[in-house]
């Protein structure tokens, strides 16, 4: 009590130094654990008899082979109950030292006497686990004996005393329990078949569960299934693999472009990325969008992924779980085994031909511009200022002199290599298990002068000094260098940045003035000032280094049998350092170099972030009769602190000194920000006969991000499951062998709003008095003291079934999610003095169906398996505060609107109906203020007989009606072939770059179709492209329906062909596999752009579905090898 009181006071007074307090708590737990353990030996027999607990002799870690599985359920029936580690452990124990447990000893004695009387002998044999590389750990026992089970060794060999007429029961988690009559034989050979339902242990919130016993919607993906997919970010590997999870590769920029949507967008603009938890450690991802530092997680370190989808699965993560949770388990060592493996691949990336922009070549552009000026002379009295006469500018006077000219898009790209080298060493003994992974990854971009390099390291170690104590230490440092991929004053992605900007350049102009010398400008006569984007790409100099360090330490103590206390400290350190230089040759849209040295600029931004999480958990796991129960209670605290600084220098004597130190003027600023979360959580899982499951969980979160009045929130959930196929009345047919129904309901939250938005903030609003700057302060951000998290209430109904002896597994889920108090900046009138207030606004409904089907199509020498998933998802806005729509109020750069009765972020703009083809059209139809005969005619949506901004309307949904993925794997002898297919149907994409590529002011290169423009009533073109008449062109440049395309696609994401060499070929190598893989192999879509997964704004669903021109997605041809020593 004294300790805890002290802790509390200390924390209040020295908040920043909370870590030592956590350490105190941590050691308190250790102390309590050890104390309890000492007492435990004496009290256990009594408690055992009271609780009717069988098998109290298990060493403490038996039920906990992994750092996180404090809640792992034990099997109820005797076969499932004896897990392999447990049995192996017991076997080794029996061999190495006398049993300490008197209770067990007594039973063993009784056993041996029984056997003696019935003439028992020693039966030996081999158990083969089909399809498994690990043959050890099968439990073998005499049926009916109740005790005396043994376990197979690494070669699958066992030895047991058994009567000649006995029946032996072979059981192994994940395999069908098999009974074999001894019939006097002394040597048996048994093969256990896989049991598809119990095979998998799935990582769930704060623990593990057998897949068969899950009552919630969780999908597991083993890293080994996706090992051949080259990826900077792990998300890329999961594309098309998990029902209900949309993963978009929004651009080809190496390193940070994966966007997740678990069951659609759960939120408005407050972050839709799932919470990523690595080995129990919730990562501090960027709240403002994107995936934060999760792209620094090295995919090579990962052993498996668990995607938690419904509220019952996620609610233990409380206020940040509404977007789903991805639990990542990293590689750990297996007891009794030592292994070295190496993964190597090398690939070449190229940009596919499909999707490159279809723009005018030099001759076409000169022809277009010739006509453009001819029309100006004829209709607008235009005079060439250079000559003073009405003549066509020289550049365009003779189009026939030009050929194809420069294709600026092609000029930017090249074939680029990517490579990955990874080594893992793992070793496990009784006392220690340790796994170490080292990776070097290097990806050059298909745009010149871009790329990412990563050095990553992870060691997971667990120490078991005494039988009831486990101590773990995991550390994972990573260092990543991003070259020109993190944006800057001129970025690669986005409207009028490098990729999209180059498209606007004149095809009449070569990138090169002479060999090795750039043309500085790419504007022909009358064009907007465009720099040479190839030059800009190649001299770009923005570098970011990222150092991340994930570390966690835990102590797990079994206080009494089944009762564990576990305390964990997680640390997440991220240091980022960004340097850029913009010299005299720097140009961008509108500015052609050279610039004066006084304008040269160097920037340095850096931030240091640490996040610590302290978790203290108590778990209790017990069985009595047909009942199993496990209980979890815990308390966790998390704090994140970031300090950041930014230095800029301007004025450089020479481009040779691109650092702030050489600048003539220097400015700088620094700041810090932090957030905290304190939570209590509890869960109960109960089942009866492994047939009826019921569970309930609750978490209470207090967050610094919310208003003083609303800091705390509670997130309960409940789930039930019924394994119908276990019922006696269930017809035992060969067709349907397993059937389970699930149902869950619960609440989760979303707190991704950034820090301090609940507080009204002031900022410097200075003014000049008496010739000097005087300090001013004004409220510039309006706070909301009632701000709290948004809450999702989610119902999930599901069924899992197994057909044809495990060859077909089907999982189905229906969900209906109602999200209330959506966090979003509520637009308020500018007349209030502010633009928005962070608000819990509105209610949304999200619903859908997830279907996942796995089949073993063909078995035998030739194997063929298929995994298929399809997900339907939709949403509707039910209410908004003041019924104020979000977005769609600006004439420019405002492409979406969220409104009641519609989906989140539907595309929004004018409806193009054609042109005013002639005077009678012009008289007949409503007009915009600048309409003329031949200009664009938009639909009069509100019917007020005039066209203006009020005539914009909804132009389409940005979320697909359904998405699907299919993986087919084929095997024959040593060969394996895998094909991954993914697709989406029903969404619309808006190509916002068309405001430039269909610009009719003669200032950019444009789409080929612009040549069919209206020039006069007699020469009206194709009726779709308006006149170039000065002053009338703006309307056609505004958001309209001609920019909207179907986003449907079918993609062959990956094709991999591998060959595994037989073990006998190389006796010092356990296994070697070589493979060739084609990533982003083929794309079938009618979307004319490069990438139908494009999403410029990544995380913000209110502005989704936009394509402003982005880094091309490369096709990767790679070769790789996996070697095991």
């Amino acid at each position: 009590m004294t300790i805890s009181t002290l802790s509390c006071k200390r924390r209040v007074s020295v908040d920043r130094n909370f870590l030592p307090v956590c350490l105190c708590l941590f050691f308190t737990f250790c102390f309590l654990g050890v104390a309890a353990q000492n007492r435990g030996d004496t009290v256990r027999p009594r408690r055992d008899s009271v609780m009717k607990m069988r098998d109290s002799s298990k060493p403490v870690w038996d039920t906990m082979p992994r750092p996180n599985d404090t809640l792992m359920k034990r099997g109820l029936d005797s076969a499932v109950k004896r897990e392999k580690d447990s049995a192996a452990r017991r076997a080794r124990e029996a061999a190495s030292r006398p049993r300490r447990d008197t209770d067990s000893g007594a039973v063993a004695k009784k056993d041996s006497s029984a056997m003696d009387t019935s003439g028992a002998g020693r039966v030996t044999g081999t158990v083969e686990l089909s399809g498994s590389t690990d043959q050890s750990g099968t439990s073998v026992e005499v049926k009916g004996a109740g005790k005396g089970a043994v376990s197979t060794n690494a070669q699958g060999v066992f030895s047991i005393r058994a009567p000649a007429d006995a029946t032996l029961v072979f059981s192994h988690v994940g395999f069908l329990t098999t009974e074999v009559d001894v019939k006097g034989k002394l040597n048996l050979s048994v093969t256990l078949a896989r049991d598809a339902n119990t095979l998998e242990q799935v990582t769930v919130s704060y623990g593990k569960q057998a897949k068969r016993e899950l009552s919630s919607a969780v999908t597991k993906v083993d890293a080994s299934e996706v090992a051949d997919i080259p990826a900077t970010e792990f998300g890329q590997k999961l594309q098309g693999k998990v029902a209900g999870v949309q993963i978009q590769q929004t651009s080809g920029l190496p390193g940070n472009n994966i966007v997740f949507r678990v069951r659609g967008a759960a939120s408005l603009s407050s972050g839709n990325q799932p919470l990523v938890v690595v080995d129990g450690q919730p990562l501090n991802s960027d709240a403002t969008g994107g995936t934060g530092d999760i792209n620094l997680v090295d995919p090579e370190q990962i052993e498996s992924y668990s995607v938690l989808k419904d509220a019952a699965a996620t609610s233990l993560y409380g206020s940040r779980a509404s977007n789903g949770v991805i639990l990542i388990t990293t590689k750990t060592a297996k007891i009794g085994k030592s292994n070295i493996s190496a993964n190597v691949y090398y690939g070449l990336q190229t940009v596919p031909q499909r999707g490159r922009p279809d723009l005018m070549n030099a001759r076409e552009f000169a022809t277009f511009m010739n006509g453009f000026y001819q029309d100006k002379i004829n209709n607008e009295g235009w005079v060439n200022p250079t000559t003073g006469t009405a003549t066509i500018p020289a550049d365009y006077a003779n189009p026939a002199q030009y050929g194809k000219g420069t294709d600026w898009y092609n000029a930017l790209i090249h074939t680029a290599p990517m490579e990955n080298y990874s080594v893992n060493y793992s070793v496990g003994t009784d006392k220690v298990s340790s796994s170490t992974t080292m990776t070097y990854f290097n990806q050059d971009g298909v745009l010149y002068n871009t790329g990412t390099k990563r050095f990553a390291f992870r060691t997971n170690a667990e120490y078991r000094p005494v039988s009831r104590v486990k101590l773990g230490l995991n550390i994972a440092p990573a260092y990543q260098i991003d070259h020109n991929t993190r944006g800057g004053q001129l970025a690669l992605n986005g409207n009028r940045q490098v990729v999209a900007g180059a498209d606007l350049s004149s095809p009449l102009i070569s990138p090169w003035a002479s060999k090795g010398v750039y043309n500085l400008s790419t504007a022909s006569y009358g064009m907007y000032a465009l720099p040479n984007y190839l030059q800009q790409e190649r001299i770009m100099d923005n570098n970011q280094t990222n150092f991340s360090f994930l570390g966690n330490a835990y102590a797990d103590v079994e206080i009494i049998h089944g009762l564990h206390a576990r305390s964990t400290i997680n640390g997440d350190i991220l240091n980022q350092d960004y340097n850029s230089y913009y010299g005299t040759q720097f140009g961008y849209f509108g500015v052609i170099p050279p610039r004066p040295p006084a304008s040269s600029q160097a920037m340095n931004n850096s931030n240091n972030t640490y996040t610590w999480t302290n978790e203290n958990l108590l778990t209790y796991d017990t069985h009595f009769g047909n009942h199993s129960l496990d209980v979890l209670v815990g308390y966790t605290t998390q704090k994140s602190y970031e300090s950041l600084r930014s230095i800029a220098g301007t004025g450089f004597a020479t481009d040779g000194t691109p650092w702030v130190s050489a600048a003539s003027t220097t400015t700088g600023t620094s700041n810090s920000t932090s957030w905290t979360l304190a939570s209590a959580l509890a869960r109960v899982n109960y089942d009866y006969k492994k047939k009826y499951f019921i569970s309930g969980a609750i978490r209470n979160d207090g967050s610094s991000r919310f208003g003083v009045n609303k800091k705390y929130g509670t997130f309960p959930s409940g789930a039930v499951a019924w394994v119908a196929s276990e019922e006696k009345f269930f017809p035992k047919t060969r067709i349907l062998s397993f059937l389970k129904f699930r149902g869950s309901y619960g609440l989760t939250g979303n707190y991704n709003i950034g820090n301090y938005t609940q507080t009204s903030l002031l900022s410097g609003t200075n003014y000049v008095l008496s010739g000097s700057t005087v300090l001013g302060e004004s409220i510039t951000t309006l706070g909301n003291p009632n701000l709290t998290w948004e809450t999702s209430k989610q119902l999930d109904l599901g069924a899992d079934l197994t057909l044809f002896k495990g060859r077909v597994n089907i999982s189905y889920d229906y969900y209906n999610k109602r999200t209330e108090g959506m966090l979003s900046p509520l637009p308020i009138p500018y007349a209030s003095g502010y633009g928005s207030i962070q608000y819990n606004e509105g209610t949304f409904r999200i619903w859908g169906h997830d279907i996942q089907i796995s089949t073993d199509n063909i078995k035998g020498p030739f194997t063929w398996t298929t995994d298929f998933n399809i997900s339907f998802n939709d949403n509707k806005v039910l209410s908004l505060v003041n019924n104020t729509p979000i977005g769609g109020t600006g004439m420019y750069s405002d492409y979406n609107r969220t409104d009641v009765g519609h989906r989140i972020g539907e595309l929004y703009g004018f409806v193009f109906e054609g042109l005013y083809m002639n005077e009678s059209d012009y008289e007949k139809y409503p007009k915009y203020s600048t309409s003329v005969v031949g200009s664009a005619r938009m639909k009069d949506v509100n019917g007020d007989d005039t066209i203006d901004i009020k005539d914009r309307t909804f132009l389409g949904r940005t979320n697909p009606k359904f998405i699907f993925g299919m993986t087919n794997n084929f095997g024959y002898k040593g060969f394996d072939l895998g094909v991954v297919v993914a697709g989406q149907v029903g969404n619309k994409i808006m190509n916002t770059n068309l405001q430039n590529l269909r610009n009719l002011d003669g200032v950019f290169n444009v789409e080929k179709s612009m040549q069919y423009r209206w020039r006069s009533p007699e020469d009206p073109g194709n009726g779709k492209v308006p006149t170039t008449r000065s002053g009338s062109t703006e309307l056609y440049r505004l958001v309209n329906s001609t920019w909207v395309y179907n986003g449907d696609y079918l993609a062959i994401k990956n094709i991999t062909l591998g060959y595994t060499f037989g073990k006998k070929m190389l006796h010092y190598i356990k296994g070697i596999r070589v493979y060739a893989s084609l990533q982003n192999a083929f794309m079938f879509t009618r979307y004319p752009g490069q990438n139908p997964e494009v999403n410029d704004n990544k995380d913000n669903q209110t502005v989704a579905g936009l394509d402003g021109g982005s880094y091309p997605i490369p096709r990767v041809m790679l070769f790789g090898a996996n070697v095991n020593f």
Partner: protein
Amino acid sequence: MKNIVLFLLVAAIGCSKKFVTLYPEGQVNEGNFYKSTADFQEALVGAYSPLRDAANVAFSLEEMRSDNTFLDYNAKDRGGSGTEDLAEFLDNSSNTTIETIWTADYQGIQRTNVILDKMKTPPAGMNDSAKNQITGQAEALRAHYYFELVRLFGSIPLYLHEVTDAKTAVVNRSSVDEVYAQIEADLSDALGKLSPPTKFPQSGAITKGMVATELGHVYLTLKQYDKAAPLFQSVTQMGYALLPNYADVFKTSNKNSSESIFEIQYKSGTDNQASQFVYYFIPTTPSTGAILGPSADYNNTEGSLNIPTQSLINVYEPGDTRLDASVGVIKGHLDAQTDFIPDSVVSILSNKDTTGRGYGFTTSAAHRFIKKQYNPPYTTPLEYNTDDDWPVYRYSDVLLMLAESLNEQGQSGAALPYLNQVRKRAGLPASTASGQAMLRDTIAHERRVELAFENKRWFDLVRTSQAIPVMTAYGTDQKKAFPFLLPTSYNVTPNKMIYAIPFRETQVNPGLGQNPGY
């Protein structure tokens, strides 16, 4: 043992409230501000700064809308056509400039509302003088912002208290009369709290002189000449005087001089207080070095706005020194990209005909521009960074408003001396105009040239009901001179006397409605 664990949990939850309560360390917030006199003075300074945001765009709504200025058609960058629409009467509710000035003025209003609400419980130790200064200046600022808004938009929402949440952020419109009543009340109260300037140059803060002038201007606008005249009279007793030389008034060395009643303060340098008016007023050009300083050769993408019209040049009387002081001509050449490169600034007097050659207006070899904010030599190596203030009220304006308010009351004789003070300084003979109507025209003409490019012309035209005839006739001439103008341009209707309410406001405050015709 279980009790201990339980206690640990309870204790941890108990002290978590502190743990989850954080305020930003690097930013002032409401939790630690508005506690002292100094805090309120800083808040008051913050209420001044939106003046600049409004002034930075006001010229396109208040001067380019009139016959004083137009623009150079920029064929290469059609993105700025919203500003052109304002000049050509093609504007609508989606125009971004009207939203900018609306937002700036209301931001100023909100900041004054915060001060005035919080001043109801002033911090301990604040003396009466500080109370009067802070309250008086805040009231005057609020009135100033509302006066601009009501003239631009007509009936508008009247926010008079601090906005604290989504509910108080939405206010419906008040009538024009109610807005003026509030302006009058605020200025009248401020008049009693503030004092005239004690020395010149002044600090730039609001004085009794500014409040009296603005209140007089309000009455003039409301045609309550009997209330206006005494206020202007009082200003003549506060120590203000015309500078001897008109051109000197706009020099950065003469800021806040005895002629200045109120001007919006700027300062060049790196602390974000600089103005950049001259960059708007010179042509769009890839190279500014020849005219804006040899050490800084910048690409100017903002220019070609607020270009003095032939119509204005034509009305300067011969010998009026104000023409050369107000309008300059930039000579230059075309580069290989046919972009205009300035070479030098020359006098308008010897280069009166600079309309350019035909349609390629931006690329003609000579451009008129406003000289009032052109103050060479430029020595700073920074672009878009000038020292020029923006004049709001000058003493000559007061004299002309005084003359007008007297003339409108039939006191033409009393009015004339004030008018002639202004003419004399401009190097012109005294006016002998007689009769109310003739003098009215003379004063209007004098206001046009004396206050050219100071955002007076459009409001004067509207105030005196001259906007429709004057701008319609001007529009006809414009279309002849510039064939690129659309047939629908210069359709000057009564609805166009005020601007549209910004579209976004009508969307997020649906009760607001829209001004007729938009």
